[in-house]
Every structure is written in structure tokens, then in C-alpha cells.
């Protein structure tokens, strides 16, 4: 019996291995994502030549429709924001003046800091003096900069937490369910995940009832034509972005979604984390509408070779057996 059981496990292993080796044409999210050179500028209204400004669609009750018009296709084409430190805006919704100056001088955050890239040659916390760092969060960010985000949890196919959901470059949809007073957001990327936003006026759970999760607990309300979502209850298993801005479980995010016209979603998020930053800051970007967009199936976990080649600071595999002294790394191994 034991022999048979071992044989079955080996058989299942072989099937899984063959299935994985068949390959996922898309890279795992995180460190190996291609850069997206054409990012809309920071703040409101960027993005090059605007498409025709069709009016903002609305639901029968007059509420802004943040999703598809019935009978049409479409999805939000979420941009790749690798560094939220370059997306800070002031109370007027415009990029911070010092950030604009740094961008103009081309010295902020190092290569790739403003518009994506692989993060090599990044400047760390000193390159982003507008971020209200605590000493530890600056030090951790420096560490993540030096190793080019090697330990990015999204590279492990773990879900992005907080605003990073709106910065992971795969289509997403917003489905409003006014009859059940909920809004559902579904994401093709970001580990194929969904969010539920309660619109029924409930408060956040308190104390032990608030179970820390990757996405936190979201309650929403409408302020005019803007959907405001208050999120708390994050765990500490995620980063704010690919560049590695850290957060703690004290993170509180206030998101604002608006649709100034049919083709554009404006996203703002105020990051309040007294465990990692000395004061709140707000980040913002636009998300274009893809009129022919539809969500596809994308399973990040499938064939994630990044995970199995990743080694820690001691040169030991993160996953799998630890190497003995003198043993060579596996073929193709090494940090990425």
C-alpha cells in the first residue's frame, strides 16, 4: 500500500511537472514584468492624445456606471505603475512640485523610476525625499532597491495589496450591484483576484474581528460622482508597489474612483500608514478604457520558474532543499 501511495504521488508530481513545463506564455508578475514605456503622466488628465470624450455612462438610477454599458464589451486597461513614489499628488490632484522638478531634471528614483523599467540603478529612499519615510521604511526601501526587488511578493504570485491592484498591468472590471449594495472588482492579473466593496453602510469590523488579509476590508460610499472606498485590515505580506515601498498592518487606504468620461477612470489613493510613514500621502493615475477588452484566464502560479530559481542573501534557495556547502546552484538558478 505504501509503495502504491508513493507511486501515485510520483505520478501526480509528473503530471503537474509536465503541465507546468508546457509553459505559460505570460511571465509571472513582479520582477520579470516588461516595462511599459508609455505611461500617462502623473495626476489628472494625462495620457497623450485623448480619445473622443464620450459622456460618462450612468446606471438607470443616475449613479455613475464604472463598468460596461449593457450590450457592449470593454474593460479597464490598468497601467503598470512600478514606482508609486513618482505618482504623488497634492491636494489639488496635481503632481507635487518637487516631484515635477525632479522629473524634469531626470534624476528622480534612478532609471526606470518615473516610467517603469526593471529597477536597476535605482536611487532608494534618498531619491524620493517627498515620501514621508520612517527610518526603518527608508532602510527597507533601500534594501529592496539594492537587490532590484528580488523579494517582490508579487513575483511569488502572491496578491498585491492595496493600491497595487490598480497598478498591475492586466485588465480589470468593475461590476456594480446596487440591488445587493455591493460592488465587485475583478482582476485578470494580480493573481486572478476579486474585491468586494460593501456599499450598505456597514462599518469595518473591529479588533480581532478584523482579520488581516491581502486586500483588506473595503466599505464604499458615493460622494457625488466619485466612489470613495475606505480600506483597512491589511496583512503585511505585500508591498505597495514593485519598487518595494513597504507597509505595515496599520495601513489604511482611502481610494477615490471617478469616471470623467466614458474612456477614462481616474484613480486616487491616500495611503495612511502610521507604522511606516510619518504622514499620509496621495497617489493618482488614470486608467484608460479598452472598448474591446475582455478578461482572460491568467493563472500566475502556473509554471512560476522565478519562484524556484530565487535564492536568498545566503545564496540558498527560497523554496526547496537548502544546498550543502560547495554544492553548485541548480542550472538556471540565481537571483533575478
Amino acid at each position, binding site marked *: 500500500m505504501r509503495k502504491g501511495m508513493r507511486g501515485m504521488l510520483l505520478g501526480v508530481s509528473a503530471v503537474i511537472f509536465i503541465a507546468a513545463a508546457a509553459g505559460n506564455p505570460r511571465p509571472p508578475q513582479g520582477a520579470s514584468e516588461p516595462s511599459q514605456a508609455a505611461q500617462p503622466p502623473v495626476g489628472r488628465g494625462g495620457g497623450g492624445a485623448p480619445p473622443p470624450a464620450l459622456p460618462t455612462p450612468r446606471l438607470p438610477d443616475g449613479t455613475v456606471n464604472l463598468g460596461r454599458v449593457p450590450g457592449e464589451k470593454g474593460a479597464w486597461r490598468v497601467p503598470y505603475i512600478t514606482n508609486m513614489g513618482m505618482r504623488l499628488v497634492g491636494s489639488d490632484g496635481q503632481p507635487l512640485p518637487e516631484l515635477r522638478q525632479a522629473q524634469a531634471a531626470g534624476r528622480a528614483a534612478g532609471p526606470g523610476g518615473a516610467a517603469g523599467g526593471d529597477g536597476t540603478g535605482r536611487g532608494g529612499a534618498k531619491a524620493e525625499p517627498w515620501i514621508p519615510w520612517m527610518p526603518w521604511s527608508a532602510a527597507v526601501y533601500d534594501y529592496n532597491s539594492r537587490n532590484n526587488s528580488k523579494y517582490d511578493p508579487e513575483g511569488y504570485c502572491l496578491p498585491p495589496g492595496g493600491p497595487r491592484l490598480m497598478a498591475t498591468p492586466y485588465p480589470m472590471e468593475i461590476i456594480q450591484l446596487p440591488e445587493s449594495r455591493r460592488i465587485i472588482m475583478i482582476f485578470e492579473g494580480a493573481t486572478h483576484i476579486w474585491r468586494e466593496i460593501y456599499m450598505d453602510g456597514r462599518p469595518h469590523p473591529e479588533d480581532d474581528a478584523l482579520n488581516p488579509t491581502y486586500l483588506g476590508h473595503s466599505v464604499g460610499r458615493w460622494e457625488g460622482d466619485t466612489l470613495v472606498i475606505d480600506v483597512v485590515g491589511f496583512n503585511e505580506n505585500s508591498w505597495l508597489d514593485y519598487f518595494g515601498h513597504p507597509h*505595515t498592518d496599520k495601513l489604511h487606504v482611502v481610494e477615490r474612483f471617478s469616471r470623467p468620461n466614458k474612456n477614462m477612470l481616474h484613480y486616487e489613493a491616500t495611503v495612511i500608514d502610521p507604522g511606516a510613514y510619518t504622514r499620509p500621502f496621495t497617489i493618482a493615475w488614470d486608467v484608460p478604457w479598452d472598448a474591446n477588452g475582455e478578461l482572460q484566464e491568467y493563472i500566475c502560479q502556473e509554471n512560476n520558474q522565478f519562484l524556484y530559481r530565487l535564492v536568498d*542573501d545566503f545564496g540558498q534557495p527560497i523554496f526547496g532543499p537548502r544546498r550543502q556547502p560547495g554544492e553548485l546552484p541548480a542550472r538556471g538558478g540565481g537571483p533575478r
Partner: protein
Amino acid sequence: MMDAKYRMFVMLLIWLALPASVMAQFGHPLDGQWSGQWGPKEKPNRLLLNLDWDGKTVTGVINPGPSAATVKRVTVDYSDTSSWLVKLEAEGKDASGKAVPIVADGRLENIGSYRRILRGTWTQGNQKSEFVLTRN
């Protein structure tokens, strides 16, 4: 027979879940539960350390339970992030109930990995040895 199949199924689930269960914690590098040891290699003393970052200070307790030692002070030298020097001061008690100062001078290593390590020199009363703690 049913029992064997059930066991096989459970083992398969555990085997499949292994990679997913391994994850790091990316908040304050000291925050969380640590386990390890100090003292002579032939007769080490086990350590369980719970640390909590409240946004201003790191607080905690060593070996929770009847012989717990409260962490009085934790300092981290952030100025040189290649060394991550940590000093932890606590107060324990000996068998007679007399207060015994504890000082751990160490260094955080491998901070981005789930195998984060804190190691250095442990001084408890008049005893001194190396210690190593791994974040659980």
C-alpha cells in the same frame, strides 16, 4: 482501505500546499515571532521571542509563559543598512525570582526572505554566548 486513501489525499494536499504556505512578512523587519536558541551547543537554551512594532517602538516578550522576560528596549541602527545592528534589552528572573538583565546584541540578516535571521551575542546575567533566532 478508506483510511489509507484519506491519508494519501491529505498528504497530497499538504504536498501541493507547501510552496504557497511559505511567505515572508514585509512590515517592520523585527515585527513577529522568532524562535531559536542561545547558550552552549551541547545544552542550548530555547528562545521564543514575540516582537511588535507599534509605529513608534518595538515591544515584546521573551519565552512567553511563567518564565517570561519583558523586553524593555529595542534599538536598531538604520544608518547602515548593510549591517542592520539590533540591540535588545530585557529583564528576566532566575530560579529564586531575582531580576536578571538580558542583553542581545545582534544583526539582522536575510531581511527580504522568509528565513530572516537575527544573530549575535546573548548576555543573561553572568552568562554569555552566541544566539540565533529565525523569524517564524
